[in-house]
């Protein structure tokens, strides 16, 4: 009984630890976000409390120490620095190892606690006090220290009807203390369109005041309903180590070229809120600072929204049950096809009506159950942020991971199986792709390298790319290695594409130094096999000095695809419907006109084709009129010639088994309504052949 409860705790603790990691990484980017700090604190508090309840005393004790320090962060007595985040991430890892019971290093725990304690300022260790809310409100009650706030004010357009004058509001604010107002005017229309009585402006105000946040709120008391008001504490006047958040804004400005590195450093050495510093130094126009602050804000808001969506009501289901369900649905789809066929052949209208109904319901059931297995790939992406952070630190490089399309949904199993290949590819980019900061600087690139991870749906596949702005692939080195390893002959003429994709060949490695980070370069062929096991494809493109792009395509679901059935020599084959554009006739005339080349003219465009009959070794005479199924692959059109086109089919994919694993043009099989087996063709492989033949 207790064991079961302990298991439940463990599950929940794992989730909390995962969220904790995400929150810590976010906090590093937005160190002044008090809500994130609160989130971190809450996570630790829960882990500690539940841990104690279920007998995980070591976890409870350790977490208590860390939680204590974060309480101080919450109260503004310690600020968020990179060191704090690094320590916290280590602490999280330690809690994880305590949880899983492997490699428990007790000395590590003690060392971490010591490091945390070193962060506590020697003045007031406010340790065992009860949790408080926004630090600013405390200050207004207890102290007279001047605090600096950032106020964002957005009034409704027709504010004038409420009788409120914006000037009056701004004036009242300035009475509370030193005040710098910045108006955002980008929504102000041109004269021709403007209604001069509307308010199109919103404001960013930096206010230093001893009166506390409540006094600020009082100013807006009568416009609460007509205004969006956000008050953030930037500098609570107590600690002097707010460098980090200022640096964040500074970095943004630096990146945008609004300020030079020397100027930024000079300003940071003073001790005022950066907004004030930069303005005083007349270095950057106010608007640009606010634009930078804006940027931060938008990113944060987007993240918060995503989090809100994630925590919507959900149910935990063991993965095996889901798999079982999907399997059964697959069987149902097959049987339903047979039912429809049988009903059609019996010419019984009642039966046909029922069969149609069953078909409709089965379709919905199929879609819904497959959907249940879909997860946004974002969860995988955020794990990589940690990886990149740690790894770039180890390598002494500056690297930023950007992600696009985190909301793209992919089948659960596919995500799990993609994890290792993606880790390897990213490590490769970091290790071999992105150069050291000095090298980058000399090359005129920004010191911080970027790795862009993106995911998007494309037809019935998902396309994942890993793009870096590193030094790219060395064509000559790869070519030389390929010849050396006997993968290609010395006089082979290969396109850039073909050379680059050699790195995926088995037995290939160009890493001159075997680094501990990504191991030997031989991993690439393993990656390729892993991707192909998912019926996907991987390719790499690169430009010397500029960077590389790895493109992975994976079919969205492993279970069912919409296909087009065709027949060749009496046998049925299935082609994935998503790649099919159209079908045209191929007459004997067309063949003669092509003069021995496998090309057909489709409304003016020449399309190469491959005769599947010939490909499959059927040398009987084809029918007089054949059909060409025109498909698209990576923006290229290719035709497959078949005898007849039969029709659409929902194909439940069955694997062919190990006996057929080396067969090139077939990727699986499906069972038709009449019980026969139809082979599912691997259009990628066939397309490649067609292209080759057309050359």
């Amino acid at each position, binding site marked *: 009984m207790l064991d079961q409860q302990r298991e439940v705790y463990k599950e929940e603790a794992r989730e909390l630890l995962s969220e904790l990691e995400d929150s810590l990484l976010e906090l590093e980017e937005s160190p002044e976000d008090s809500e994130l700090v609160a989130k971190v604190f809450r996570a630790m508090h829960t882990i500690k409390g539940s841990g104690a309840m279920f007998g995980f005393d070591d976890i409870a004790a350790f977490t208590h120490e860390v939680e204590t320090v974060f309480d101080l962060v919450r109260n503004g007595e310690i600020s968020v620095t990179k060191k704090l985040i690094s320590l916290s991430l280590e602490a999280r890892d330690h809690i994880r190892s305590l949880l899983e019971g492997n490699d428990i290093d007790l000395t590590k725990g003690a060392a971490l606690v010591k490091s945390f304690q070193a962060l506590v300022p020697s003045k007031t260790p406010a340790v065992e006090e009860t949790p408080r809310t926004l630090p600013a409100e405390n200050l207004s009650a207890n102290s007279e220290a001047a605090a600096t706030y950032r106020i964002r004010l957005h009034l409704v357009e027709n504010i*004038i009807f409420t009788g409120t*004058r*914006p*000037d009056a509001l*701004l*004036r009242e604010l*300035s009475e509370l203390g030193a005040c710098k*107002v*910045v*108006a955002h*005017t*980008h929504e*102000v*229309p*041109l*004269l*021709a369109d*403007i209604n*001069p*009585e509307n*308010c*199109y*402006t919103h*404001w*960013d*105000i930096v206010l230093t005041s001893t009166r506390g946040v409540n006094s600020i709120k009082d100013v807006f008391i009568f416009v609460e309903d007509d205004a969006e008001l956000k008050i953030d504490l930037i500098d609570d006047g107590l600690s002097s180590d707010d460098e980090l958040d200022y640096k964040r804004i500074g970095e943004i400005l630096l990146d945008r070229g609004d300020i030079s590195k020397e100027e930024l450093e000079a300003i940071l050495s003073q001790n005022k809120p950066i907004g004030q510093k930069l*303005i005083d130094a*007349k270095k*950057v*126009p*106010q*608007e*640009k600072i606010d*634009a930078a602050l804006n940027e931060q804000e938008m990113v944060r808001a987007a993240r918060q929204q995503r989090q809100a969506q994630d925590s919507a009501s959900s149910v935990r289901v063991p993965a095996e049950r889901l798999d079982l369900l999907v399997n059964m649905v697959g069987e149902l789809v097959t049987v339903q096809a047979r039912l429809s066929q049988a009903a059609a052949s019996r010419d019984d209208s009642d039966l046909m009506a029922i069969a149609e109904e069953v078909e409709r319901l089965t379709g919905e059931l199929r879609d819904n159950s497959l959907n249940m297995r879909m997860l946004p790939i974002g969860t995988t992406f955020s794990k990589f942020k940690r990886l990149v952070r740690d790894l770039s630190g180890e390598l002494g490089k500056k690297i930023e991971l950007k992600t696009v399309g985190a909301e793209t949904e992919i089948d659960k199993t596919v995500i799990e199986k993609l994890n290792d290949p993606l880790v390897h590819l990213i490590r490769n980019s970091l290790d071999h792709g992105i150069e050291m900061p000095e090298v980058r600087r000399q090359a005129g690139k920004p010191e911080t390298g970027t790795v862009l991870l993106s995911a998007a749906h494309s037809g019935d596949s998902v396309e994942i790319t890993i793009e870096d702005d590193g030094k790219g692939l060395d064509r000559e080195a790869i070519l030389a290695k390929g010849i050396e390893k006997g993968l290609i002959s010395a006089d082979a003429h290969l396109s850039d594409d073909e050379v680059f994709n050699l790195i995926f060949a088995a037995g290939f490695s160009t890493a001159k130094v075997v680094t501990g980070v990504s191991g030997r370069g031989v991993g690439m062929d393993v990656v390729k096999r892993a991707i192909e096991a998912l019926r996907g494809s991987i390719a790499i493109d690169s430009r010397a000095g500029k960077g590389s792009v790895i493109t992975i395509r994976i079919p969205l679901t492993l279970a069912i695809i919409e296909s087009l059935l065709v027949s060749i020599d009496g046998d049925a084959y299935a082609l994935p419907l998503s790649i099919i554009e159209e079908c045209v006739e191929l007459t004997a005339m067309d063949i003669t006109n092509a003069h021995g080349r496998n090309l057909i003219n489709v409304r003016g465009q020449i399309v190469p084709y491959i005769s599947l009959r010939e490909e499959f070794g059927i040398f009987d005479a084809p029918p007089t009129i054949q059909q060409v199924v025109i498909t698209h692959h990576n923006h290229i059109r290719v035709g497959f010639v078949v005898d007849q086109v039969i029709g659409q089919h929902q194909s439940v994919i069955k694997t062919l088994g190990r006996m057929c694993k080396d067969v090139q043009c077939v990727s699986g099989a499906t069972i038709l309504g009449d019980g026969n087996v139809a082979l599912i063709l691997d259009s990628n492989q066939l397309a490649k052949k067609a292209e080759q033949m057309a050359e």
Partner: protein
Amino acid sequence: MLTIEQEARAPGSLLLKLRGDADVTGTTQLREALLTGLNEQNELLIDCSQTTSFDFFAIQLLCSAHRSAVVGGKKIRLVAGDLPTLKQAIRATGFARQNGCSLCPDDDDCLWCIN
């Protein structure tokens, strides 16, 4: 009460003299004048030496005028003296800029560079 006097200057240049209180009550009138002025002239000069007060809506309207000028390739400038009242109003409402506003970042002559 706001009165607006118009005075032609060099060809293509028009002076608008604002007398009285420039506030929301006069904005419709002011808008008309600015709009017509920018449509017909290449340069608008605004003389606020006789203006006794400015409120936010007047400043916002000036902003709109400035935008329209930049977009239309025209110029709009403040003339006649130090204008402490106006500058105070621009600062208080947050329209002041250091080196130039976002529409004319390199222009030291920008309307909003009031230092």
